């Protein structure tokens, strides 16, 4: 990831500042510190099975954040507010299609990815062909998806996860790790390969850092951007299926909390909202950091209000390290 971040000549004056400006390193240091703090506050917090449990929750967020990451990298105020709606829609669709039966898993995955792809395609077309700002387009799409959920849930009892899916998410699958973690690792490798080793990856960074220059250089800007939105919704759909497996049954608006936390995970991972730089490794760390913070707060007996206050202040403090814009003077 470091090669994508041009070093600021000013930074070379002090090597400590350079290290502190590497978001991936900051995130890892914070993760270790938080684990130590958690273990001190409540012994057993940093035990292996507890960390595994946190990683499962982080994987669900991390997969949503992968798509969010792509859209944000593509620049031009790229952001996807509809991911939460897609997660909910996908969890409901998957539950209804598989209906607790292992034989229907493949069909459910296909339906969900197709539905997600379609939503992303519409988002992408709205943003590129019609030129609607991503925030407005995906905000409107979120409203449509919330309405669609009401229609789909009407009269149909909410579906059940197939046993194999539930086991995949929470039971050890390979080398004592649950399947969802292998899936997350696969998503991580896929993203690293996509961003670092394919021409699509270079095109994404190109349109993210300077769209006009990329266009002049022959990058099909609109097609790439449509693809980013489609991928974002498909990752959200994939996460929705896993969340169904995690919860066992789909309940209303299960995806709501993923909208803004996926954006926060991306930012904490060192991808600024202005796009064009950053990568997914940081986002994975950001997702785990976010889940870890929330988990430590639940071990404190300070009540829901205190938890939210501490969480908000901590987030603000963390954001001090990430992607602050330059001062106008100087």
């Amino acid at each position, binding site marked *: 990831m470091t090669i994508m971040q041009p070093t600021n000549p000013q930074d070379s004056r002090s090597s400590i500042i350079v290290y502190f400006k590497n978001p991936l390193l900051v995130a890892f240091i914070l993760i270790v510190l938080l684990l130590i703090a958690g273990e001190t506050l409540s012994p057993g917090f940093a035990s292996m099975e507890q960390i595994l449990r946190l990683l499962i929750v982080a994987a669900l967020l991390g997969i949503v954040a992968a798509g969010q990451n792509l859209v944000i990298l593509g620049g031009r105020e790229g952001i996807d507010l509809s991911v939460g709606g897609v997660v909910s829609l996908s969890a409901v669709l998957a539950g209804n299609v598989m209906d607790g039966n292992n034989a229907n898993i493949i069909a459910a995955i296909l339906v969900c990815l197709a539905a997600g792809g379609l939503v992303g395609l519409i988002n992408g077309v709205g943003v590129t062909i*019609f030129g609607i700002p991503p925030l407005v387009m995906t905000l409107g799409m979120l409203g*449509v998806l919330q*309405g669609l959920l009401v229609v789909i849930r009407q009269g149909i009892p909410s579906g059940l996860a197939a046993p194999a899916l539930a086991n995949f998410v929470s039971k050890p699958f390979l080398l004592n790790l649950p399947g969802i973690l292998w899936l997350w690792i696969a998503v991580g490798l896929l993203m690293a390969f996509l961003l670092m080793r394919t021409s699509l990856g270079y095109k994404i960074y190109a349109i993210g850092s300077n769209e006009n220059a990329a266009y002049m250089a022959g990058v099909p800007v609109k097609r790439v951007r449509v693809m980013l939105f489609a991928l974002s919704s498909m990752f959200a759909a994939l996460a929705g299926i896993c969340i169904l497996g995690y919860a066992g049954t789909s309940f209303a608006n299960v995806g709501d909390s993923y909208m803004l936390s996926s954006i926060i995970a991306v930012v904490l991972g060192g991808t600024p909202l202005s796009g064009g730089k950053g990568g997914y490794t940081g986002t994975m760390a950001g997702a785990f950091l976010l889940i870890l913070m929330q988990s430590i707060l639940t071990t404190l007996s300070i009540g829901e*209000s205190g938890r939210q206050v501490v969480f908000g202040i901590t987030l*603000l403090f963390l954001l001090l390290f990430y992607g*602050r814009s330059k001062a106008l003077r100087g």
Partner: protein
Amino acid sequence: MTEAHALKTRMATLFRRFPFLPALGMLLLLFVLNGIAEPNSMTVRALKGVASTYLALVFLSVGQTFVVYTGDIDLSVGAILSLVNVSIVVIMSQLGGEPYVVLLALLVGILIGALCGLVNGFVVSGLRMQAIVATFATSILLSGIALWVLPVAGLPAPSLFWKVYGGRSYGIPNVFFFAVVLIAILAVLAKTSMVTKLLAVGNGQLSAYQSGLSVTRIRIYGYVICGVFAALAAFCITGDTASGDPLVGGAMTLSSVAAVVLGGTALSGGIGSAFGSAIGAIIIGLISSLVFYAGIPSEWQNLAQGATILVVLMLGVLASRRINQ
């Protein structure tokens, strides 16, 4: 040919001066459609219902506009609204519902709103954080404080409060007077140089800075104005629901952003009108009442509403871009 061109230029100038004109057209169309679907929806009584429900969103969207003018965004407006709502209800229930207590509560409410705006302005403009994530973080913080002030919904507001909000003076519902007050506030603000400065910052921070504007301070002012309007919106919600609810504003944040865009204000900053945002908020209200009156089956109503808002948002953005070209 030249005449047509001249007309086009004049139209463009007109739209640039009043960016809310497309929204105004849409508003009139929605009034007509509502009237056709259900003639009774155009009675003073029915309109009063729409107004008392959506006046809070109107104030909230107007507030959001002052932040969007500079190209920023405030995702904490809903949380500010909730915090002010529970704070004033708790103050009034602790000290009794006498008129001077109600006035004191309103004053404290406005101070809380301004203070929240100051915090937002400090983190976004002073500390130069990214507005979307920073105001989301402050919204978590403020919701936490709201939950601390009033852990569960349902504490009633004194009767004086909702009787004034829901009552009539000289036969005219009071909510319409509040709407007039809003228009007066906007007219006064339009006379000051503040709106021009905010728009200048939105047009280009560097050029605004180089022409001698204190960009950091102006962006903070935008957030403070927004916080004060969120407090006013909280007064409307308190009058409408007659109770305190620490989660009441949560769902309204994104609606306020939608209303701002519907009103012809560009999210990139530099162009727009607060009056348009007020129209945008009423458009959202009229769409939901139209969906209701049009006889759409209840389970399809949310979808119809969401799809209509998406289409209207897209049309609005297309129209304003056409004009600005």
